[in-house]
């Protein structure tokens, strides 16, 4: 009985050891690749990023994309070392969890459009005492609406939470909500489906990071060459898209990106990027210290960051070295 027992356990321990060894071997092999964790599915909205990564691959950096359910899962993957670079804006995580994760390249700023049903509201003042719908508690959309509350001297009766810009757009079209905030795809859908029925309220002075690349400081230190190539690829891609938004559709064909995209979405690629390029949505200089300062103010308001924004230090949130090295090479724009 005892012998039998030890034999059985002996076997499983061996199996375990072999398995562990294999895992380790696989892990060390995978180190040559840069693993990027993205907190959403691949779509038209990140075609330019995929193109930038293709460019980086041509320069010798192998990139492996993983698509995860949400941005904070991507952040957790980076912190635990299961991914090297994450996409998002994990300011709260960097502040509260003492792990050396740093943002190193701003990819986009928040582009949202407060949309109201023209039957009921015309201006910001009309929203005084009314209900508005935003993405979620502590989100950028909520912060934008709160910021406008302050600026316009109004007070919403209630802020309700409806995750997903497409869901809010649908709710607006169906008449379930009368005032909300949508993304550029939602804005175009509103204009297409019901021209003139909705008013986009003016929004100024909001300039916060929507997505950025971030990684652990030790990864940034150890892989300077790869990181520089990625930063440079993104910056040159962003500048090209700003100059010629139609190029994204060409890249999609050239690199065979998102081959299964339905035709109606393919048709949207160029208008989408044209609109963003006109709105200067692609930071040509990768954000850096100036972006960090804007983010401190904005994310403090949204509740992501806690404390006095003036007391935050850029180097506690950003690793500026890769960006500075690359800007030294390609110049500021």
């Amino acid at each position: 009985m005892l012998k039998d027992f030890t034999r059985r356990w002996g076997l499983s321990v061996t199996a375990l050891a072999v398995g562990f060894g294999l895992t380790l071997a696989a892990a060390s092999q995978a180190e040559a690749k840069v693993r990027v964790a993205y907190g959403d599915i691949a779509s038209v909205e990140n075609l330019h990023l995929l193109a930038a990564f293709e460019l980086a691959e041509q320069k010798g950096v192998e990139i492996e994309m993983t698509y995860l359910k949400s941005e904070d899962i991507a952040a957790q993957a980076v912190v635990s070392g299961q991914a090297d670079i994450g996409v998002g804006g994990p300011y709260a995580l960097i502040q509260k969890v003492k792990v050396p994760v740093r943002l190193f390249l701003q990819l986009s700023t928040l582009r949202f459009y407060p949309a109201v049903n023209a039957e009921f509201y015309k201006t910001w003042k009309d929203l005084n005492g009314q209900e508005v719908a935003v993405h979620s508690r502590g989100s950028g959309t909520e912060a934008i609406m709160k910021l406008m509350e302050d600026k316009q001297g109004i007070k919403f009766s209630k802020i309700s939470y409806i995750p997903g810009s497409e869901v809010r757009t649908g709710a607006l079209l169906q008449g379930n909500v009368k005032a909300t905030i949508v993304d550029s795809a939602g804005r175009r859908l509103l204009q297409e489906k019901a021209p003139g029925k909705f008013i986009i309220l003016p929004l100024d002075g909001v300039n916060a990071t929507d997505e950025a690349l971030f990684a652990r400081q030790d990864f940034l230190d150890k892989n300077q060459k790869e990181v520089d190539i990625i930063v440079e690829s993104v910056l040159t891609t962003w500048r090209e898209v700003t100059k010629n938004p139609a190029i994204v559709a060409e890249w999609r064909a050239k690199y065979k990106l998102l081959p299964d995209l339905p035709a109606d979405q393919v048709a949207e690629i160029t208008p989408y990027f044209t609109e963003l390029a006109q709105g200067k949505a692609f930071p040509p200089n990768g954000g850096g210290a100036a972006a960090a300062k804007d983010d401190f103010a904005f994310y403090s308001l949204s509740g992501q960051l806690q404390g006095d924004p003036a007391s935050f230090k850029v180097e506690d949130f950003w690793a500026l070295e890769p960006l500075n090295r690359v800007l030294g090479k390609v110049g500021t724009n």
Partner: protein
Amino acid sequence: MAFPAQANGSPRAVRSSEGSFFWRKLSEHRTALWRTASIGLFFLAWEIAGRIPISFAFPTFLETLDAFIRMTLDGSFLAAYAQTLQPLVIGIAISAVIGVGLGIVMGLSRFAEWLIAPVFVVLQAAPMAALIPLITFVYGIGLVSKTLAVIMLALPVIALNGYKAVRNANPSLVAMCYSFQGSWWQRIVKIIIPDASPVIFAGLRLGLAAGFIGVILAELLITPTGIGDLITYHRSVADYPEMYAAVVSIILVSTLTLAALEAFELRVLRPEKRRS
């Protein structure tokens, strides 16, 4: 594992009368004692795991406890449960009425069983987390969707338990009703339903347990409100102790509710089972 006081001839049990009194007292409460020890050990393991730490996002037990007390005192739990309980209570009430009704009908009629039971068996086996997002396509994102999520989880359990309870009503009691020339109606109302009531009630209790799962799934997958909002919000701003405290609170609330219902069931409906 026996206590020395119970082990015959244990030297410690007879050494001093004071000691034996202590052990006797202990053994009287030993179930409670072991249970407390089990929970205590779990918390200890949690605290150690949090201090290692196994993950940067894993708070220690004490941090979570601190967050739990803070959130209880500042009323966030109270406000959250006021929201979470709405779809739960409505959903369970609807499921109870429809589920018990259908269960009895299925138990009494083979035809109804063939017609209805397969639907519930399939529903019970279906992975609900995958189906809940589909509700939003039809019913939107409001209270109706969340209540439906609760019903989808609770109704099959309640209906199937009711059906089995009625189908398996004690045949000798039914035979007795026949021999006393009881009418069809009397047989159902005075014999079958009272005899089935303990199992029907147990079904309701299990239905409530499923309803708790349903409401939390709905709050995490449809729109974050109540306790689901506390979990998502604190996760998104990296307040992990608060997030864990919210998770623990829902476990606590559902466990206590179910334990209370079980105690009620044993006391009122199944007095014969209390000793066992």
